[in-house]
């Protein structure tokens, strides 16, 4: 069970706190490995085999292979790390933002151009629609 924290009632937010960091260390370090071009080549060649070198949980492994962008965060990932996988896929932040919040890349981009996700209704979980 996650400890309750003062920020636990911020909706749709996965804070890289000590617990999250412990849970996601190996997953995030897999993502980190994609900074190196030779690793990107290996991962491109055979994703499953490449992942064998990282002690991920079954769920984490599945989330990587299926590009479950929200699931990756729920399993300990941090966006700066998981985004390296998106870079590998040549995806941009609007695509990933949309995938995590359940809309298309275009819809997400349009929301940003219109001023971003509004403050109202998004500060406390208690006010979520």
């Amino acid at each position, binding site marked *: 069970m996650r400890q309750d924290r003062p920020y636990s009632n911020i909706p749709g937010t996965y804070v890289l706190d000590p617990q999250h960091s412990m849970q996601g260390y190996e997953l995030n370090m897999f993502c980190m490995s994609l900074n190196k071009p030779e690793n990107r080549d290996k991962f491109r060649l055979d994703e499953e085999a490449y992942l064998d070198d990282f002690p991920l949980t079954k769920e984490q492994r599945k989330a990587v292979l299926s590009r479950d962008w929200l699931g990756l965060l729920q399993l300990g990932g941090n966006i700066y790390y998981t985004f390296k996988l998106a870079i590998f896929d040549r995806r941009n932040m609007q695509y990933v933002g949309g995938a995590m*919040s359940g809309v298309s890349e275009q819809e997400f981009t349009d929301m940003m151009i219109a001023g971003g996700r509004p403050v109202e209704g998004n500060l*406390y979980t208690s006010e979520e629609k």
Partner: protein
Amino acid sequence: MANLFAGVGTSHVPGIGAAVDHDKTQLPYWKPLFDGYGPAREWMEREKPDVVIIVYNDHASAFSLELIPTFAMGVAAEFQPADEGYGPRQVPVVEGHPELAWHICESLIMDEFDMTIANKMPVDHGLTVPLSIMCGQPEAWPCKVIPLAVNVIQYPQPRGSRCFALGKAIRAAVDSFDEDLKVAVWGTGGMSHQLQGERAGFVNEPFDTAFLNDLTADKERLINIGHTEYMREAGSEGAELVMWLIMLGALDKDAKEVYRHYHVPASNTAAGLIILENS
């Protein structure tokens, strides 16, 4: 003696760097943002700082969860642009100022700020995008740079009050450096944005406007903003704004705002820029 004359606060969104690198700054999406950068570039050309201390955060490039320094200062003669997964940005190598950087580190540690000292530290968009914003695309960057990397990714990040105090200590260090140098401090990151989760895309313009105002009007309020307030009000990645408080701490109490620019969106972020000068 070295003279710390000004501070700049600016976002460091990677998309801004990509727009510069791929010649997109005049597209309708980017033009309003870059139009607002014009006066800041003119200021930079006019003022010609010898050295800029750039306070930024590393985004899993030089550091990772393997090693998480809260404050790391680069003392090397040069810093290479990092490969963040696309190959390194094709921008000039960043030249350091080892003598001043070591002097600052020594002074800070004697002042009880236990710095991490980095002799090798590739620099990512957190540092190179502010250079592109302020300088455009020169053959070589027009100033020496002392990188100061702050952990703002792994909670808990340093508190705003600590960042402000560090800024003050940096000022004391620069003031005691025995060479005529014109020095600026840039605090980077922010403004409100959230990259992750179902709340991705969160932007809070009233928060950002109040933050820009209070850099001159109410520093006490800014210094006392806590972690949860940043995450809730400025988005989970908006906590980067503590880095602006290091810049603020290094300035005179009555530093004046000489320019500001604010635009939404730059990628998934509210982009802000402010220039503050000592009188």
